[in-house]
């Protein structure tokens, strides 16, 4: 049986699909956040070097991962929208940007709170911190460019170009701790080698990461739904929706 992959590239049918998926991801996010935070605060042992302050990694590391993944996702969707002229992919890219910016800010903020007791300073001009800050600027640039353009089609395409140009920053952030041997420690978790941390800490961090994914997907879907309604408000299928009065 051939599956029609393009069915859900139509905003109208995706709106319904998103409506079904949002509760699932929201519930998953709530449960995983509860479990992850419980492990983070009560189960994971105290670090012998860093004391209790290390516990901020349970939100810092997932937030930093998300900030990079979401930028790549945003650039990919924007690129697909630019190349194939699909409306929905561009809407997804627009919906991802604020969540990505939020995670970038969260990674910087929690990093600063962690840095004060550990490094004795809120901020250092270290390669990874600086490139993460540039990432925040890129998100802000993307959002303000789209906000400044009235025509949504032009906004989508212009945003796509700037998102794709900015994607060069992602490998720089990711490898910055390897290329420049600066204050920010190297990656503790990697796919190729066994993790250099206690198993419970790792479990907690991975659960928190999945929770962040679920949260991000839920929020992005809600925002996509809103964007779809906003842009399609003159169509007949929107006026036939229950609970939406125009």
């Amino acid at each position, binding site marked *: 049986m051939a599956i029609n992959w393009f069915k859900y590239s139509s905003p109208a049918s995706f709106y319904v699909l998103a409506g079904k998926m949002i509760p699932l991801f929201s519930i998953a996010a709530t449960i995983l956040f509860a479990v992850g935070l419980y492990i983070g605060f009560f189960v994971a042992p105290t670090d012998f070097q860093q004391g209790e302050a290390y516990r901020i990694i349970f939100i810092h590391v997932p937030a930093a991962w998300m900030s990079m993944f979401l930028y790549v996702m945003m650039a990919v969707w924007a690129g697909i929208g630019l190349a194939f002229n699909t409306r929905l992919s561009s809407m997804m890219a627009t919906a991802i940007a604020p969540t990505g910016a939020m995670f970038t800010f969260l990674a910087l903020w929690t990093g600063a709170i962690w840095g004060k007791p550990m490094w004795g300073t809120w901020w250092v001009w270290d390669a990874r911190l600086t490139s993460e800050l540039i990432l925040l600027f*890129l998100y802000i640039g993307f959002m*303000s*460019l789209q906000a*400044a*353009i009235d025509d949504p089609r032009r906004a989508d395409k212009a945003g796509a*170009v*700037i998102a*794709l140009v*900015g994607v060069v920053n992602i490998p720089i952030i990711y490898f910055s701790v390897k290329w420049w041997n600066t204050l920010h420690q190297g990656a503790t978790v990697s796919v190729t080698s066994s993790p250099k941390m206690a198993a419970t800490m790792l479990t907690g961090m991975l659960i928190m990461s999945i929770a962040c994914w679920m949260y991000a997907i839920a929020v992005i879907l809600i925002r996509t739904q809103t964007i779809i309604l906003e842009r399609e408000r003159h169509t007949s299928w929107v006026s036939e929706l229950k609970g939406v009065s125009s």
Partner: protein
Amino acid sequence: MSLWVIQRDLLLAMRRRSDVLTTLFFFIIVVSLFPLGVGPEMNMLRTMAPGVVWVAALLASMLSLGRMFSSDYLDGTLEQMLISPQSLSMLVLGKAMAHWLVTGVPLVLMSPVLGIQYDLSTDALLILTASLLLGTPVLSLIGAIGAALTLGLRGGGVLVSLLVLPLYIPVLIFGAGAVEASTAGLGAGAHLSLLGAFLLASLVLSPWATAVSLRISME
């Protein structure tokens, strides 16, 4: 084809010389403001000099970006360029190069004089000039993308800085870093090679991205 555009843009710039001079004087004034702001301590100024000159070059190059396409956009020349059978990327490359010749080259020529104000050694002056020579074309090329994307938008001038300045940061880091590395005795070779790599990469990719952006903006 690019040469024709360069020639034309240079001719237009020469007819309105004040525009060129404004950018240059902006650069000189910004660099001269720093000693007044932070005090005339020579040791501090010497360590600050490369960063200050580079930041001023970044701002000067960025402020003149608006002129790259806007006058052609207003009088319809840009539309003719878009529908012409010539490759738009080559035309755009010509425009970016003309922008560099008009705004970048004067800054490069002026920078040794400003470096002397900051009491830089001869070696440091040479490296500073070399880094600006390699870096300022990158600024024009990257800036062209921002200028094309914000063409005809309200508040385009502020917006272009938000788009372009984050992308300028690597050039700033390695440009100013080259001088610092050579003063520290490490040699500026690595930094200058990276700047050269940025130049080559942006020379290939930026005209293409700018051409795409222009088509989006002119639709």
